[in-house]
């Protein structure tokens, strides 16, 4: 059974600046990293592999240099890494991206039963949180978003029960496999690669699938298949701060107020 982690190479956004004149991202010289939420997806695919004997595959759509991201996945131990790369995939929005990823997953599922597709809840560059659900819709998978815990996985009955982290509450849901899960940070602590694995990952073959293999209609992928247009990028103004309570004379009471405030904004989990 397959556990597929969809991971994306993203620019390290803490280092990205916006060109004030052209309103575009200055990406020159910015290092690429694995989208942090995707590292939790990757980790969970490895955990279900270890616990339930699934086969873990890392998938990424991106330019040829995204191979580096897949090598990182190899360094933490995936069984197979596949790069979906073709000139015609370039400039894709979330719709076109989920088309390509879905096609690749479908192709993998021809040979082996599909169990779980893991995606990060969103990427730190686009922040749309649409690709995971897009894949689920296209493939007709149950979609379990914002999962912070896998409660139970029944390989006999082929069902899964997970906990979703919602604003101020949790929701426990159960679904039949195969499912698509999007992961939040609390789900797990990604492992650190060992040196022997890192060295081995340098030698591993990362397969590249282009559109000759996937055979998608060129109108449904890349820029052509993307109905989204970016009109403007800008840094939003910062909200005004606010002072609550009287921290000098009543530190405990003020701490309480601060905790309430953070809870109400879902910045703090109980």
């Amino acid at each position: 059974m397959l556990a597929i982690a969809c991971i994306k190479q993203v620019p390290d956004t803490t280092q990205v600046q916006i060109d004030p004149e052209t309103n575009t991202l200055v990406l020159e010289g910015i290092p690429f990293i694995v989208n942090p939420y995707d590292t939790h997806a990757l980790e969970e695919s490895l955990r279900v592999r270890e616990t339930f004997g699934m086969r873990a595959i890392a998938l990424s759509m991106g330019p040829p240099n995204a191979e580096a991201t897949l090598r990182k996945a190899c360094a933490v131990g995936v069984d197979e890494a596949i790069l979906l790369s073709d000139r015609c995939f370039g400039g894709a929005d979330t719709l076109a991206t989920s088309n390509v990823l879905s096609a690749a997953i479908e192709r993998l599922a021809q040979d082996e039963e599909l169990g779980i597709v893991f995606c990060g809840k969103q990427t730190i560059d686009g922040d749309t949180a649409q690709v995971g659900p897009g894949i689920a819709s296209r493939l007709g998978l149950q979609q379990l978003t914002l999962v912070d815990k896998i409660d139970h996985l029944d390989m006999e009955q082929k069902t899964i029960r997970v906990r979703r982290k919602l604003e101020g509450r949790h929701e426990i849901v159960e679904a039949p496999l195969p499912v698509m899960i999007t992961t939040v940070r609390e789900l797990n602590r990604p492992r650190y690669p060992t040196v022997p694995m890192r060295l081995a990952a340098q030698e591993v073959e990362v397969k590249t699938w282009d559109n000759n293999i996937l055979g998608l209609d060129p109108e449904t992928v890349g820029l052509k298949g993307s109905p989204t247009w970016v009109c403007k990028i800008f840094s939003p103004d910062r909200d005004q701060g606010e002072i609550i309570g009287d921290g000098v004379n009543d530190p405990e009471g003020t701490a309480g107020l601060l905790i309430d405030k953070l809870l109400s904004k879902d910045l703090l989990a109980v």
Partner: protein
Amino acid sequence: MTSSKILILLLFSASGLVFLWSLYRRLSLVQLGRDENRLDRFGDRFSNMLLYAFGQKRVLARPYGINHAIFFWACLFLVAVNLEFVLGGIFPALHLSHLPAFLYFPIRLISDIVSLMTLGAVVAALVRRTFFPLYPEARNFEGYFIVAVIAVHMLAYFGINATELTLGQERAGSWMPVSLFASRFLADVSPTGLENLGAFSWWVHALALLVIFNYLIPYSKHLHVITAIGNCFFRPLDNPGTPKRETFEPGENFGADSVTKLTWKDLFDSLACTECGRCEEACPAWHTGKTLNPRRLIHDIKVNLLGNAEEVKKGNDPILPLIGGSEEGSCQEEAIWDCTTCGACLEACPVFIEHPHKTIQMRRFLVQERARFPEELLNLFENTEQRSNPWGMPPADRAKWCSPFGDRPYDAESCDYLFFVGCAGAYDNRSKHVTAALGMILDAAGVSWGILGKEELCCGDSLRKLGNEYVFDQLARQNVSLFKERGVKKIVTQCPHCFNTLKNDYRQYGVEVEVIHHSELILDLLEQGRLTLPGTVSQGRMVFHDSCYLGRHNGTFTAPRQVLKKATGQEPGDLTRNKENGFCCGAGGGRMWMEELSGTRINLERVKEALQEKPDTICVTCPYCMTMLGDGLKDEGEDQVRVKDIAEVVAESLNKS
């Protein structure tokens, strides 16, 4: 030859052979370790051996050392005398008494006095072991047994001499005051009684020798009488705290989880340890109630080696784990992470055992082969690898501190120095003041300097000491190639960790750059008159805390003190533990980034020690010390005492108008 002489001949010949065989068996165990070259620079090594083993220099550095030195020197003399004892017992023609009187009499005199001194040392050793042991377990059977055997050996020696004197068989009587004194008690004993007593003493004397050579030396910690001499010869000649490089090829092992992955010198160290306890006395981790005990670490390696040797020789895997077991002979993981690599143990050990190397080797195994480490280190590792600083701050912000100085890119043509700012100096709000102070001082002295800005990467000190050699190696390669590319010749740092890493660790990457810490550069500028201070600004009562990596690891003790004196007009006070014996702030060895979960806090212990001197200002030379002591003062509720870097003190005097 009489039958008793044949017996003696056979006994001692057999004993000699067994001794050599036992010694070979035990010492050859070190071959189970990895290779390491310790035979270079023979002359230096030989003179070190003379000075530290035969001269007992480090042994004598502590008060009770004199006792050991007496034992040692007496042993050297008595080994020669005892050779004569055995040979003379078998072949009377070889007896020293055949020597002319001007040689023979003084030898007898010295033997007598040395033996008495040894007896005195035995008494002192007994008193010390019983009433003032460095650690409670020092009161063990083996410890008492060896002194008892030596005492018996000495008493028997006097017994032999006293009977011979009484029987009139010894012509050097007047040169043997102690034996002569002992003979007085035998005045009433019959000649047969004396003969029997003499024979009895001879056999007791001989038996004690057999016990020493056939049990105590090869099979107890008293093997150190041989191995400690070797250890002084094999000591690290360069910076002893610098770990060795690892090569990253597929199929290699990384770090050590068994004695076979340590080097032969690591194993030799374990055989050279006499468990004197000086390392644990100096260790900040052990001192504050942590699991790590450097003496125990070395002891466990020895027990592990002895316990696994037979299996390993057969080609099997070790039975007793080196890491993680709870029994003797296994190092607890917690202990491995407790080390601050401050080098106090290296400094304290009379025979140059290298404790932190072993810890770092085991950390390397845990991090690189198992990815097992305290969880707070994950962020450090990932931040440093991805953003080349421990906090994960944007690399573009690395030069932000420099905005008051304008653009200062390093250029080999126009800059005297590359100012390697370091992560703390570039990002830490408190340390940025020190960085700016140093920039100002250099400008005032007319020293041209430049920075690498966002191209500068973390030096990798913490990662290396934490066992993440793989990422350290990447950082070091990139920094070194940047230095080469930019034609860097001289570097100034404001952080002893950068200083030590660039100066000592990067040398392993073939970089030949002059690296100087700001304390020495500032002193140099003051002494040359290039930096003139319009006046001095008092810092109130001032004490100086030695940074381990500037002080103990690199021997810079006086420069910062002199700088302070020149900038304030006052001598800085010292803490109780200072200079070579300085006490770590608790942040070295990557501990800066870790929680301190057991025992008391190292920084608090150091701050309390500083507060005993009632200072107004605690002066430091290191951003880590600054943070740790500053935090300690806050915890102690001391808001009047300030922590300042020496550069800030100088800058204040510079600004005095």
